[in-house]
């Protein structure tokens, strides 16, 4: 039996260095976590007093210096709803193509992957420009010219164009989540289905899709969380400073929580006086996106666990 060293041979400075490096890197984790906690605490501390039922269900009053954020809440909800309807089917189908039909070598699939990654890193403001240039100026103007005799109805910023712009932005989020979930479905299940005589489409419909429902849900939640918080794409595609009533048709402008925060904190008539409103709005938005991403993180964690 070989002799076992009784203890590690001490090398001068090594233990000290080890401990130093470990604590230094650990400290960065503490710092980052601390910043996250600080943002949360400051927002909660500044906003919770104002976070009343009235605040959530009232319109802004007195030149937006008092009152609630009801139209912004409804606007955000409507926008994310339309966005989800547009983005999720596209995302799910693309993810199915990438994981079920496309082979790794296919140039087409590689191009799609690259395009999705590009969509994920393009600055959100570019989506805003695209929404303005494509949806409003190209599609909207042409619709107006063709059907409304040039009267400006669709060729202006509105909730539909803003939602579609946002859908583009959140498309990669959906694709990545759904693809990740589809990958966790064991190959055996597909083969069993095919062996029973099912076609590939039947396999996808009856085996792959039901198995990836959690992933689709995760992707949808993440997309909503992202879409609810983004402001840059809707800056000039549909968000309004103030609307007197809730949007009743798709070609109306809307108020959004994020845009409300931006406007109130930089361009309102009295920034200091409305600070409580700003904090409370931020708190609402943060709670919304935070709880959504928390749900998504938990769901994703369960998917990953299932995969192992």
């Amino acid at each position, binding site marked *: 039996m070989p002799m076992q060293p009784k203890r590690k041979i001490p090398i001068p400075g090594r233990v000290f260095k080890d401990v130093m490096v470990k604590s230094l890197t650990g400290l960065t984790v503490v710092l980052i976590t601390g910043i996250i906690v600080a943002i949360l605490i400051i927002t909660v501390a500044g906003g919770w007093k104002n976070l009343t039922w009235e605040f959530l269900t009232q319109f802004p009053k007195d030149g937006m210096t008092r009152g609630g954020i009801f139209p912004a809440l409804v606007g955000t909800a409507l926008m994310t709803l339309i966005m989800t309807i547009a983005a999720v089917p596209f995302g799910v189908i693309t993810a199915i193509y990438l994981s079920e*039909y496309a*082979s790794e070598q296919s140039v087409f699939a590689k191009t799609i992957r690259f395009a999705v990654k590009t969509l994920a890193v393009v600055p959100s403001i*570019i989506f805003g420009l695209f929404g303005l240039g494509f949806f409003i100026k190209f599609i909207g103007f042409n619709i107006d010219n063709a059907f409304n005799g040039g009267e400006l109805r669709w060729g202006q910023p509105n909730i539909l164009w803003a939602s579609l712009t946002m859908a583009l932005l959140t498309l990669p989020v959906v694709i990545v989540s759904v693809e990740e979930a589809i990958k966790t479905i064991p190959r055996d299940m597909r083969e069993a289905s095919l062996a029973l005589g099912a076609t590939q489409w039947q396999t996808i419909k009856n085996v792959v899709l039901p198995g990836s429902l959690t992933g689709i849900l995760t992707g949808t939640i993440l997309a909503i969380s*992202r879409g609810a918080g983004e402001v840059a794409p809707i800056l000039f595609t549909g968000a309004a400073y103030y609307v007197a009533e809730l949007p009743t048709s798709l070609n109306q402008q809307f108020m959004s929580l994020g845009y409300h925060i931006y406007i109130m904190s*930089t361009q309102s008539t009295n920034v200091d006086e409305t600070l409580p409103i700003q904090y409370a709005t931020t708190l609402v938005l943060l709670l919304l996106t935070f709880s959504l991403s928390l749900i998504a993180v938990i769901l994703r964690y369960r998917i990953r666990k299932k995969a192992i």
Partner: protein
Amino acid sequence: MNRDLPDTKKQEFEKKTALSLSIREKQFRFSDWFAEKLIKAVSFFSIAFVILIFLFVFRETLPLFSGKSGHDKIENSGISDENANGLKPESYVAGEDDQAGDELKPEVYSPDEELKPQVYSPDAETQDAGELKPETYGDVIPETGSSDDISYANEGSGDSYEIGDEAEYPVKTLFSGDWQPVSDKPRYGLLPLFVGTLKVTLMAILFAAPLAIMAALYTAMFAPPRLKEIIKPVIELLAGFPSVVIGFFALTVLATFFQQIFGYASRLNAFVGAIAMGLAAIPIIYTLTEDALNAVPRTYTEASLALGASIRQTAFSVILPAATPGIFAAVILGIGRVFGETMIALMATGNAALISANPFDSIRTLSATIGAEMAEVVFGDTHYSVLFLIGSLLFIFTFALNAIAEFYFKNKVIRRIQGK
């Protein structure tokens, strides 16, 4: 591309199980065929969208280069750059003094702005440029938003331009040092915007990259497995913070906090913006770096530990070098995120188009310029086209960054780890 698809399809099927192959070849089902084609067609859209984004963002910049300006193009070389630069500051003295100070936020501007065109007079042209410089940044903040302001500027471009200057040639002012799109002599110098963007990006990455990489190193190498499960989702939660929330945090809390520490003059400046943008970039760099570190084969770690190295030595001499290309890719994507960040830049950097090396000066970034001014411009205006030009540049830049990270560095990682 479409032509070689059948081939690759065939290869794919050959690779798949013999069972599915035989089913495929035996019978033709319309529903199956249709579903596949439909799915393929829909997934093509993500490619189409990227192309469309490029096309339509670029399309709006075209008027700039085709010279659609209807005015007579008389160039008067007598008006030098400096001179034109000096014209405007003079005209604002009345309203601008108190604003040029520390608060460069948009809201300060509303009432005084209307004075601008009225005070302006041709006499101002004779003024000396040099001594007026400090005030320049008063008028480079055009996001005031009052619509009469803009219409005035447009009238101005119609009336007072008979003398002719660069404003008739907007393309020529693109490389100048002044960003003054809303004035009676609009100048669209992108230089200060570029300098500001680069400055804030550099500072943000210098703040975010070391933090994120070290945190990732701790998570991947040193942290106990239980702690790892907590740290990862917590830092990833930061990615779920909307940028407007981070911007608001920077605007209300960070700006005051840092002002108390450093005592600088303008409350909102490049430094505050950089810290806030760094916060936005940290989760991206962290996640990708952690992935890169985890992608290093476990045998590397084990071999190093077996040779008697400590975990620290393994981390720095084995894992980090092997993961370097991946970490570079992470930092590059972080740069892309900061470069295009709009809301934080809009809210926390002060939005004054200054060229200076001082990190505590206000700056104006490319994306914030689009965000602040696009809502107020007249469709088809030169200003409008210039904003789209900025958008195209941003798009091309982030596209290139992504391509570099994707193809160059990813391949390097694979090659390095596979030992080729």
